[in-house]
């Protein structure tokens, strides 16, 4: 099963290779990995998407915790979480395809971030299903280039009572 693991690490050189080495050395699978500094610049946040049965995930979490540069590990599947991925897609667009591309962009609330007479560069973010869907739709036009960030995710803040939740929803 797919798991999203959020890992807080020391922001120093070599840490990424320790984490990557752990996965490759033990034959664990990495589907995607994203890293960036946190608010506290001495730490970085990694979001790792991986998969495996319960025993493997337990080992992955324990092995990550064992790394000295790892400060905190959270298996987000154990809580509620929200996750997003961004893709940047360059598509061939000529003549009537240009209008079609813009329609798709609109439907997916994506943005055109660069444009030439024969291409659009489109930025889209959302959950992986949404990204897959837009890619499928754009494919017939001809995708020239595609980059994806991999997922980032965060645990949902636990909500104390139904009333509080209702208020929050109302606000949103």
């Amino acid at each position: 099963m797919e798991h999203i693991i959020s890992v807080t690490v020391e922001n120093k050189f070599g840490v990424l290779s320790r984490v990557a080495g752990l996965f490759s050395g033990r034959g664990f699978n990495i589907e995607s990995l994203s890293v960036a500094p946190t608010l506290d610049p001495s730490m970085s946040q990694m979001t790792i998407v991986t998969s495996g049965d319960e025993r493997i995930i337990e080992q992955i979490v324990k092995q990550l915790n064992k790394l000295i540069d790892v400060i905190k590990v959270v298996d987000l599947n154990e809580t509620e979480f929200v996750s997003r991925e961004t893709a940047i897609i360059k598509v061939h667009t000529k003549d009537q395809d240009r209008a079609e591309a813009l329609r798709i962009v609109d439907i997916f609330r994506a943005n055109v971030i660069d444009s030439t007479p024969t291409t659009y560069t489109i930025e889209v973010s959302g959950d992986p299903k949404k990204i897959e869907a837009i890619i499928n739709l754009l494919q017939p036009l001809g995708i020239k280039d595609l980059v994806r960030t991999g997922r980032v995710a965060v645990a949902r803040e636990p909500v104390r009572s139904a009333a509080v939740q209702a208020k929050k929803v109302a606000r949103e």
Partner: protein
Amino acid sequence: MKLTGAEIFIECLKREGVKTVFALPGGVVLKIFDTLHQQKDVEVILTRHEQGAGHMAEGYAKATGKAGVCLVTSGPGMTNVITALADAYMDSVPLVCFSGQVPTNLIGNDAFQEADNVGLSRPCTKYNFLVKDVNDLAGTIKEAFYIATTGRPGPVLVDIPKDVSMAKAEFTYPNAVSIRGYNPTYDGNKWQIKQAAEAIMKAKKPILYVGGGVVFSGASQELLELAEMTQIPVDMTLMGLGAFPGEHSLSMGMLGMHGTYQANMAMHYSDLVIAIGARFDDRVTGKVSEFCPHAKVIHVDIDPTSIRKNIHVDIPIVGDCKTVLRELNQILRATVNGEQKDLRKPWWDQLREWQQAHPLTYQQEQDGPIKPQQVVKRLYELTKDRDPIVATDVGQHQMWAAQYFKLAKPNRWLTSGGLGTMGFGFPAAMGAQAAFRDRLVLCIAGDGSVQMNMQEMATAVVSKLPVKIIILNNGFHGMVRQWQDLFYEGRYASSYLDTTPDFVKLAEAYGAVGLRVKKVGDLDAVLKEAIATDKPVIVDVPTYPYENCYPMIPAGGCNHEMILEDPPELKKKQSGATKVTPEDKDTVLTA
């Protein structure tokens, strides 16, 4: 006052109580060697190969319980020490290895003798550091020793570029270390410990399965109390030998692939396995799906990744053996009464029956070829009063040493278990001898393995480390030959060693003493002579080449399905072979 990096290095070693460094110089560490040369607090033992330096540091660490230290140069010095780091990593040996690095401004330039030391050692160290600024050196060394010796011990590398060893900085040594991502758990969860105590009270067929963790933790006394109080039998892993007295009536001996019959049967039929500082290695579990099918499992280990890695655990306790056992004993002291003895009487009847049915055996004929087991047995009997430290290499001789050398105390057993590194024994023995100059240190070696670090004989002679090497010389990579006889229809692909050097002359060539046992009758006299010699000694003991080590659980086999003796076809072949020497190296033995 400002000190150079090299001076800071030495000051740090002194603060850590390091008396001995195993080392071999080279360009980028010359400043450090030069500084070491001008002081007397830290002794430098110059080895002949960096692998030797690494294993010596391991032997030192295993015998003393403190971190062993080695120092090597960049490039080839570093690659040479990798085997020892990997060995220490697998066997959780506390080690701090210092490597030289090219000057910081050249790192990444493919400079002369440059290697990515941190990258090379990453998968085989607990942690590693590249020190880029002399101001960070003291703090880094403090952290290195702290990481190497706390929690689950292991090797740590500190890579020091040449310019850092020469630059100057104000020296202050931190008193304490705090690393936010590293906080080993020593105290076990109290509730879990209570659960464990309850399970122990109820069990009808309990077994203690104890490993290297008991040795690292110094928990032998607590283990003894637990076992005696509850009358639970004790199985030891290869790495746990000495954690519990081998001659104790509760000791079942070693378990696993070449463990005793009773030790393995006890595991298989037990209803409660109490694993303490042992990691359920595949040489112990055999076929995982049929491992201890009737048992509940309690697992005490300081490293959470050891727990549930290979097998299901019912009562996991993350913590230090000593701390957890103390707590457990305290609970049990209040509850254990005569009833457990009655409850477990049938279990003990069964255990004694197993013990009597298939004890360790071998046949030594009076004027027949010398049996390797006989050598180990006599060596044990002749030296046990001197409380020796025993190192081994890897192979059949290692297993016979494990079976027949019944150690009474921990930190006397130096063997390579996890990596199974041939060539480990002799340098490890030297490391222990360097720590305890007056103790008797033995190395039970194979004729194949011993050739892998023979060069260190020069170190032993020069540095006056009077290790006694006893070579069980069977002319074979015996362990390989055994597998070939059992699983490859007796085709001896590259297991026959053909000509080995004359080990007696070899010892003499180095300035050591060489002795040979020509017949069984001479065994005691020659061993005694070796023990009485105050120089390094090689005792060459030509042994029966076709002896196999039993019991044996074939890899992936089930623990209660042991091979106890040579299968009939093999016996037939060998009865003819006793008089023949293995001349026909590629052929099957013929009757």
